[in-house]
Every structure is written in structure tokens, then in C-alpha cells.
């Protein structure tokens, strides 16, 4: 397996969707390839950081405005 082939499979690797045969080939490649080990670690961390940075809660003022907007519209459409 080449680095290009290994990197192509990372999404399925993280989702544990690789067949046992391909998983074995990928693990064997990672065993001998330091750049790909670094790539896997940083790829996995990228996913974590995206979740941490973008998983923001709804601001309270927006929540209040949304509730007021909906109550008002529902009252007018009943």
C-alpha cells in the first residue's frame, strides 16, 4: 500500500468500515511509515477540533428572539 492509498482510506478507517483485509494492509503500512502515522494522528485531531470549535450553543439573546418571533407568528396564524 502506498501513502496515497493509505490516506484515501482514512475516513473509512475512522468509521471502522474497512474490511479486515484492507485494515491489515493499512496497519502494516502505518507500522513502517512515520509520515502517514503523523497524518492519521493530525487527521483524527482535525476532526476533534472542528467539533470543539464549531459546536457552539445557541446564544441566549437569539433564543429569546426566536421564541418571541414564533409565539407571535403562531398567535397570528391560529
Amino acid at each position: 500500500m502506498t501513502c496515497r492509498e493509505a490516506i484515501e482510506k482514512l475516513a473509512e478507517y475512522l468509521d471502522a468500515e474497512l474490511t479486515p483485509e484492507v485494515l491489515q494492509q493499512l496497519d502494516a503500512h502505518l507500522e513502517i511509515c512515520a509520515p502517514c502515522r503523523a497524518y492519521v494522528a493530525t487527521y483524527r485531531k482535525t476532526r476533534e477540533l472542528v467539533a470543539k470549535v464549531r459546536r457552539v450553543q445557541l446564544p441566549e439573546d437569539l433564543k429569546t428572539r426566536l421564541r418571541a418571533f414564533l409565539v407571535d407568528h403562531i398567535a397570528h396564524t391560529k
Partner: protein
Amino acid sequence: MDDEADDLSLLERLRAGECRALEVLMGRYAARVHRLARAITRNTADAEEVVQDVFMTIYRKGESFEGRSALGSWIYRVTINAALNKRHGKRHQVETSIEEHLPGFDASGHRKGDRPYVLADWSQNPDAALLSEETRALLNRAVDSLPDHYRAVLVLRDVEDLPNAEIAEAIGESVASVKSRVHRARMALREQLTRHLGPRA
């Protein structure tokens, strides 16, 4: 308990005119709708209007939801349509080609780049550095600069943790296409983080 009521029974109650059901659905979905809308519109004011539109649609057209798919998928589909409409004509600005941020390979399939760069592993850096204001801003800019059809899919997969199949249903594309976009988006973001956090050449 309202908080434990399933989505379909909440919709039923909403159809019967019970405002409390809408309140519970808001608690369950408003933040997610807002995050997705913000990702697509890249604009806080537009995202707020999208959230309003989506909840009005849930209230008015909830009866058109037939329960064949998860309510969440339907809500995400409504959100994507509303957000794309909102930014109609506002394409361009910050979007860059994703190709320029994908890893390059030589003829033998090895990654291109000097040794310190391809070996850079910043994954063990302390959270204080990885979640600094500067890195957050860089990552937010990098997400915003992804093309439309990558941003929505990335947010649904990595922020909302939706299964690929549910995302495929929400955006009307194949599972293979969802997987490919998520992977390419992550690679593009990883590359930009590495340029920022990895060793300089």
C-alpha cells in the same frame, strides 16, 4: 416528560396547536439548525433568519412530514434549502478551491513536501495551544472558505455527528459522495492547521 417525548409525538402535539411542543423541538434542534445555517450562510444575521424560517416551516408544514425518514433529516433538509436561498447571489468572497489544500503525492505515491512538514504531528500539542483564539479563528476561516457543498456535509458529519446515510438523505446525494466530501474537507482543514501548527520549513 416533554424532554423524553419522541419527535413524532411532538409533531403530533404541534399539529394540535400545542405551543409547548414547539418549545421542546426548539430546545432539541435550534442550536443544530443555527450551526448548519451559520456554516452555509457564513453570516450570523442570515443564520438567525434561517432558524426562524425553519421553525415556521416545522410549524406550518410539519403535517407534510410523513415519518418515513428521521425528523432530524427533514429539518436539516429544510435548513439547507432555506440557507442556500438566503445566500443566493452571495456566492464568491471567501471561497477558495479545495484542491490547493489537498495533499500532493509523487509518482511513487509518497506525499510531497519536505521531511519536517510531512512528519509534523501537532496532535499532542496542549489544548491551550490547539484551542487558542488564533487557532480557532484560523479553523473557522478555513471552514468558511470550503466550497458550499463541502461545508454543509462537514458540519453534519463532524459537528452534528450524523451518520453518512442520514446526511446523504438530507442533501439528496449518495453515501459515497458524502464520504468523499467529508474526507476531502478534513484533509483541506488538516493541511491548513499543519501549516499553522506544524514545523516551519
